[in-house]
């Protein structure tokens, strides 16, 4: 198991789904974790309550919208005063508002871009101020195979994820000489509530497309993030790791 004792980790969208599994995995590896969420107070509270005292002592749960640059600034001002340093940032916060392009509400297009892509930009831009002076940092952006191959009814989501890949690769080049790596993890079909809204007949079709013939678990995604965010992954940057069961 990789060791994160003494490290500070920030996971956006860290109270549900893949984010919650990431927060748990980092906590179990010894890190202090700040998990953010945008609106589900009840979900966030129940997430925090699910930990024993020792892990709960190293967890903070904070509410703000990553697409709101002012809120991001306010968060980091407080974070810097309390924590002082940041080793790992995981941009996992993401939303879907599906629809075909021909009928997509422009507001739905923009909202998905704002959260999934601009949110990551807002977080990275500010987090670099903590990472650059220390000449160390790990940024992991959670993307999707949809960003590479597209997805019917998800042009906004796919575009935001494709953008996030290009953003990650560009940022990786900018900070490469400063001990900061920037990588993407692209989970395929993972057992979370994100899949809950998908109709039964689509699920069967998806399974046929996956060579492993099953959906992935959040723990399987977390294992990949924990490697890339570790000190040991020091020569990996600008990469995209597909966690898709071969799809």
């Amino acid at each position, binding site marked *: 198991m990789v060791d994160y004792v003494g490290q500070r980790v920030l996971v956006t969208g860290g109270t549900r789904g893949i984010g919650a599994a990431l927060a748990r995995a980092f906590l179990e590896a010894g890190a202090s974790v700040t998990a953010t969420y945008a609106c589900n107070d009840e979900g966030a509270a129940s997430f925090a309550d699910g930990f024993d005292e020792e892990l709960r002592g190293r967890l903070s749960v904070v509410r703000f919208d990553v697409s709101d640059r002012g809120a991001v600034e306010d968060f980091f001002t407080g974070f810097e005063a309390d924590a002082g340093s940041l080793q790992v940032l995981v941009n996992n916060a993401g939303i879907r508002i599906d629809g075909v392009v021909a009928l997509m509400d422009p507001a739905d297009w923009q909202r998905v871009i704002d959260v999934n892509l601009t949110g990551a930009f807002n977080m990275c831009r500010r987090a670099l*101020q903590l990472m*650059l*002076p220390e000449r160390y940092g790990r940024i992991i952006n959670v993307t999707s195979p949809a960003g590479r191959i597209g997805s019917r009814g998800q042009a906004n989501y796919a575009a935001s994820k494709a953008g996030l890949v290009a953003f990650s690769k560009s940022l990786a080049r*900018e900070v490469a000489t*400063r001990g900061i790596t920037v990588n993407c993890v692209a989970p395929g079909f993972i057992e979370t509530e994100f899949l809950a809204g998908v109709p039964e007949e689509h699920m069967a079709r998806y399974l046929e497309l996956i060579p492993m013939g099953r959906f992935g678990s959040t723990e399987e995604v977390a294992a990949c993030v924990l490697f890339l965010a570790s000190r040991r992954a020091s020569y990996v940057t600008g990469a995209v790791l597909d966690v898709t069961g071969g799809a």
Partner: protein
Amino acid sequence: MTEEEVRGKVLEIISFIAPDEDLSTIKDDEPLREQIGLDSMDFVDIVLELRKRHRIQIPEEDYGKLVSMKGIVQYLIPKFQAKA
């Protein structure tokens, strides 16, 4: 803190960020980045190093004032004096 002392602090940081550059020939009235090889990321490093070493905060809207050595020093003198 005197102008000379502030200039010295700035040169200390620049030589840390860009150790291979010859800083002895810098002309104070000309843009710094035209005289020595500093790119945008080096500039960010310098601003963050000022914050780390000297607890001096430089708001982003003031970055445009940090062009020549003279401009940088004049900008920083009151900031250093406020800390003293």
